[in-house]
């Protein structure tokens, strides 16, 4: 059973990322805060007796469900379904080079200086916006796999899909982000 401190530490470590995940989904700070609060309370009420190691997966699943509940309440489920089908539109990457984007990103972010502070903020905002623009399932897969650092099986469990789908969503998300950043001149 997770102690008070373990539960507190866990929530503290995850709350900001959870908020951003919810913002990406519902595009409203207030709604996202309500969703995160709802998810935290659900976790505390029903799963506080679980071992601390199980909390991350359970919480992400609760957060996903709380977000879906919000959409149901808002009666915009049709919009979600529309978003879910968006991932089919991707796929043609042309001759764009993923490695080139990676090098540009590493060069820029790795050699940060004080004079780059403004452009760094702009870059963060730009990446944030691009992540928000991703189709829902791609974004969920990308965030769970690389931001929450779940493995493919865990991500598939949270998303309720196959591991193959997770890999596909992640790959398309990374390519879409890299392409979008390159178009915007990133060089980041």
């Amino acid at each position, binding site marked *: 059973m997770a102690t*008070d401190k373990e*539960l*507190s530490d866990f*929530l*503290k470590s995850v*709350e*900001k*990322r959870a*908020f*951003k995940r919810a913002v990406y989904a519902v595009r409203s*700070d207030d709604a996202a*805060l309500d969703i*995160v*609060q709802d998810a*935290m*309370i659900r*976790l*505390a*009420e029903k799963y*506080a*007796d679980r071992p601390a190691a199980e909390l991350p997966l359970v919480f992400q699943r609760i957060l996903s469900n709380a977000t879906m509940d919000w959409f149901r309440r808002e009666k915009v489920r049709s919009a979600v379904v529309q978003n879910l089908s968006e991932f089919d539109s991707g796929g043609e990457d042309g001759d764009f080079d*993923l*490695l080139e*984007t*990676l090098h540009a*990103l*590493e060069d820029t*972010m790795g050699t940060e200086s004080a004079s780059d502070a403004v452009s760094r903020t702009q*870059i*963060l*905002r730009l*990446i*944030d916006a691009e*992540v928000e623009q991703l189709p829902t399932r791609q974004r969920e897969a*990308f*965030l769970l*796999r*690389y*931001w929450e650092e779940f493995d493919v099986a865990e991500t598939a469990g949270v998303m309720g899909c196959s591991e193959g789908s997770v890999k596909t969503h*992640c*790959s398309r*998300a*990374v*390519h879409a*982000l*890299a392409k979008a950043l390159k178009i915007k001149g990133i060089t980041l």
Partner: protein
Amino acid sequence: MNTTSRNSEDSGIEARLAARLAGTLTQATQNLPHDVSERLRVARQQALARAREVRLAVPAATTVAGVSAAGALTVSGFWPRWQRAASLLPLVLLLFGLIAIDQWMTREQVLTAAEIDAQLLSDDLPPAAYTDPGFAEYLRGSPPP
């Protein structure tokens, strides 16, 4: 073989880029507005308070069960046996009362029948006269006294 190594190289690059992007997102979340951070803190505290309530509720339920179990034990002890017997006393009294009433009513019925029989037998008119149709017609026809 060449294709396999190419694929694994691609996925390695993809993973590195994804990790860099995720790192960037993490940096972005460090600068959330103060009111958002505060609301998250309050939400966390509410959740922790709720978790404490849930944890306390479970032992409380156990304690109540323990008390009732202890109560059940004392009921099976010496003194409570008398208490249980005392609680049955009104029922026993009620039963005796019903039996007494039944006996009294039976006795009343017997005495009433005996009185009627005694009057019939001590009367000048023999009881067989009441079965005679002529005497019955006489009684109907004669004026009341």
